[in-house]
């Protein structure tokens, strides 16, 4: 089983919080550590965004663009996409 704490954004979560939860839940992003390093393409979260975009067949912009947001809001299975 995988430590998926609290599945999804509910009311009030900002897009970035939703993104952080999504990457933590499904792409093994380290939990809770402040991830946002402004404008650094090498930041761990940009790498994780690109990993998610690659897996889900999206353009690998490394940014939280609208098509990435759309997919993140779609119903899905709670099992992660990449294994620890």
């Amino acid at each position: 089983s995988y430590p998926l704490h609290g599945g999804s954004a509910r009311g009030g979560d900002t897009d970035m919080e939703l993104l952080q939860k999504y990457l933590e839940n499904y792409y093994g992003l380290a939990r809770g550590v402040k991830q946002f390093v402004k404008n650094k393409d090498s930041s761990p979260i940009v790498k994780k965004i690109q990993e998610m975009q690659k897996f889900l067949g999206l353009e690998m912009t490394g940014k939280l663009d609208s098509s990435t947001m759309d997919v993140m809001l779609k119903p899905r299975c709670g099992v992660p996409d990449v294994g620890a």
Partner: protein
Amino acid sequence: FSTFPGSPKWKENHLTYRIVNYTPDLPKESVDSAIEKALKVWEEVTPLKFSRRWEGEADIMISFAAGEHGDFIPFDGPGLVLAHAYAPGLGINGDAHFDDDEQWTEDTTGTNLFLVAAHELGHSLGLFHSAKPEALMYPVYKFSADLARFRLSQDDVDGIQSLYGPPTASPAVPVVPTKANSLEPESSLTCSPALSFDAVSTLRGEFLFFKDRYFWRQSLRTPEPGFYLISSFWPSLPSSMDAAYEVTNRDTVFIFKGDQFWAVRGHEEQAGYPKSIHTLGLPTTVGKIDAAVSDKEKKKTYFFVEDQYWRFDEKKQSMEPGFPRKIAADFPGVDSKVDAVFEAFGFFYFFSGSSQLEFDPNAKKVSHVLKSNSWFNC
């Protein structure tokens, strides 16, 4: 495709499952049927066999729950996470949990239980997510899936067979040994746009299309149908039959020709048949029926004769008063003589000559017009 880290898999090919509880969204029979169909998806392409447990521990425990449900991975209310499942192993491993804050449905108006269960059971067998959007194991749910044409993608088949290998030879319904169990139809016949059928029926999640002395047997998981002599499965059944239908909660298919009908369970012909169709309550003025279908939800069976139909109550085992009624009155758009009919995924499929009408009983209208052999993937 991918497998869980370390590629855990079941050591045995014969696995047990138990439906621990039910969602209030669907009748129990619908949940049972969706889970059976979902297991059959994987059974068809592996040596795996599943048998149901009604109490105690089973390899795969299937349950519905909302929010926190004892595995430290709470569900999140309606939407987003629909379900999750665990890799093969002891205890919670192998189990599948469904979020009961979702609206579980048999069709695609809500979250289709069969589709999600087939995906989650893929996890229970050891598959992880696939990056191919067309794969069943792709993580994001596809509402638009066309249930009538559901089938595993090659990626799903490659994934599960990387763990368990291909199926052994035996078919789901044992074949009575004859010299030619499976025939090769004249290839132009199966995909002929003019193809029509004498009768059609479901049978344990598969579809049977009867014509003259033969029948096609289509599973949702294999692209091509099998083609067999009727007599190779059921020696005493007639050829060129008039109608056939399955009563799923009796695991029985009834076959009609003239004023008689037979009953089979799998490949076993039931004793005491043929019986007269008039024992069902059809008037003696009716010499034969054209088509019949049994609605497993409503537990009603419909007998179609020319432009009229009768309705039979499976619980009371008697024909209902107030019939016959005009077919066109209650099935708007079904105007021509019905050759055959079956029910699948909440729709009625009426066959007339080379045409097939998909009828939505909720909307009470024809939702698609198809070729009769559209199920054969020509």
